[in-house]
């Protein structure tokens, strides 16, 4: 009797594993990200969002570019693609159009998505390609040692802006909004619950969806600018963030250590690229056209 009780307790204990572990390639953990880096926190939120989304994980694919955040694909226990620098979005476009049944998520950094990959972002949003793009914005090129990024605010020092950055940065939600994204939000890694909720919401929506996640780079951006550790940056996010759902995206650009507007800014419906193609060809070609990637009813 007591033996079977022990057995039961042992069984129960084996179930007490971190709820995110099944979403990770556990044989690859610990990951390469520095102590205090926020990318892992965003991935943690993404795993919770996957749980809550109720999606069939065999039909979720993740695509990353190059850089620190680009390594995300390699840690998630999904069909995962670590592509070339800046090209995660076009790869994801091919994957989604190749198999429209897949829920395709692009998970990459600000340099990858908005410098070298900027053009692809604009066009995928314009076409309303049915993918979710999560951009972890740490305001720098982490993997290569802290160079100026298209998101670096005016002021802070970067290795290629040794006297402080004088270039104007992008306002990422504004770009996504202007290009036609159906869902746009910004959160920081301090806002873990809101971020996980936003990711879940975006996973369940159609069209080109965009989430900006502000995240500290303690090793390069913070250290070089005497901003303390990762946790100090997250404290700054906590203190300086204002939630303004529905804010006009043109007003929410980020300054150096200034106010951070977070929230959901855009949530609208537009036909996706594939829906538009199917509608158009059905209209023009009639019976000669069989809609692509649409399961016949009853299957």
């Amino acid at each position: 009797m007591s033996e079977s009780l022990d057995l039961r307790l042992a069984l129960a204990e084996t179930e007490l594993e971190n709820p995110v572990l099944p979403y990770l390639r556990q044989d690859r953990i610990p990951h390469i990200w520095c102590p205090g880096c926020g990318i892992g926190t965003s991935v943690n939120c993404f795993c919770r969002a996957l749980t809550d989304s109720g999606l069939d994980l065999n039909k979720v694919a993740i695509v990353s570019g190059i850089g620190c955040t680009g390594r995300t694909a390699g840690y998630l226990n999904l069909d995962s693609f670590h592509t070339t620098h800046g090209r995660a979005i076009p790869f994801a476009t091919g994957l989604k159009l190749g198999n429209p049944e897949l829920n395709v998520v692009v998970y990459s950094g600000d340099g990858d998505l908005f410098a070298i990959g900027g053009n692809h972002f604009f066009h995928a949003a314009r076409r309303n390609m049915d993918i979710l793009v999560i951009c972890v914005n740490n305001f720098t090129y982490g993997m290569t040692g802290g160079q100026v990024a298209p998101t670096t605010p005016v002021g802070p020092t970067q290795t290629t802006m040794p006297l402080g950055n004088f270039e104007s940065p992008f306002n990422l939600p504004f770009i996504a909004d202007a290009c036609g994204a159906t869902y746009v939000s910004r959160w920081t890694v301090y806002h873990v619950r809101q971020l996980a909720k936003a990711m879940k919401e975006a996973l369940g929506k159609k069209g080109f969806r965009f989430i900006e996640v502000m995240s500290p780079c303690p090793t390069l951006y913070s250290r070089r600018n005497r901003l303390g550790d990762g946790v100090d940056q997250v404290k700054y996010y906590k203190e300086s963030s204002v939630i303004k759902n529905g804010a006009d995206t043109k007003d929410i650009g980020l300054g150096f250590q200034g106010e951070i507007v977070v929230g959901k800014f855009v949530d609208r419906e537009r036909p996706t690229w594939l829906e538009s193609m199917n509608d158009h060809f059905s209209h023009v070609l009639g019976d000669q056209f069989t809609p692509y990637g649409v399961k016949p009813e009853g299957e």
Partner: protein
Amino acid sequence: MTVEDTARKGKGTVFVRMEVCKGCSYCIDFCPTHALDFSKEFNQKGYHFPELNRPEDCTGCDLCGLFCPDFAIFGARWKDLDEKRQQAASQVKL
């Protein structure tokens, strides 16, 4: 990972995989009830890891689990843990 259910002082508890912790202190600084502290010991990689020093304050809210960039900690409520155990036990009986 063991369940220290001998001393159920709070509503919940935390589980730490100290070997993957990188000592970022997110969990410690953002614990809503300030129940965690750094350990005095180091892990294999030379980092201090979190310890539940005020178990009576832990609500098992799992905010530490959400914050942790290294998947090294998570929290759970005793109520939920007991339910899980009961489920497991009933499965063994069957």
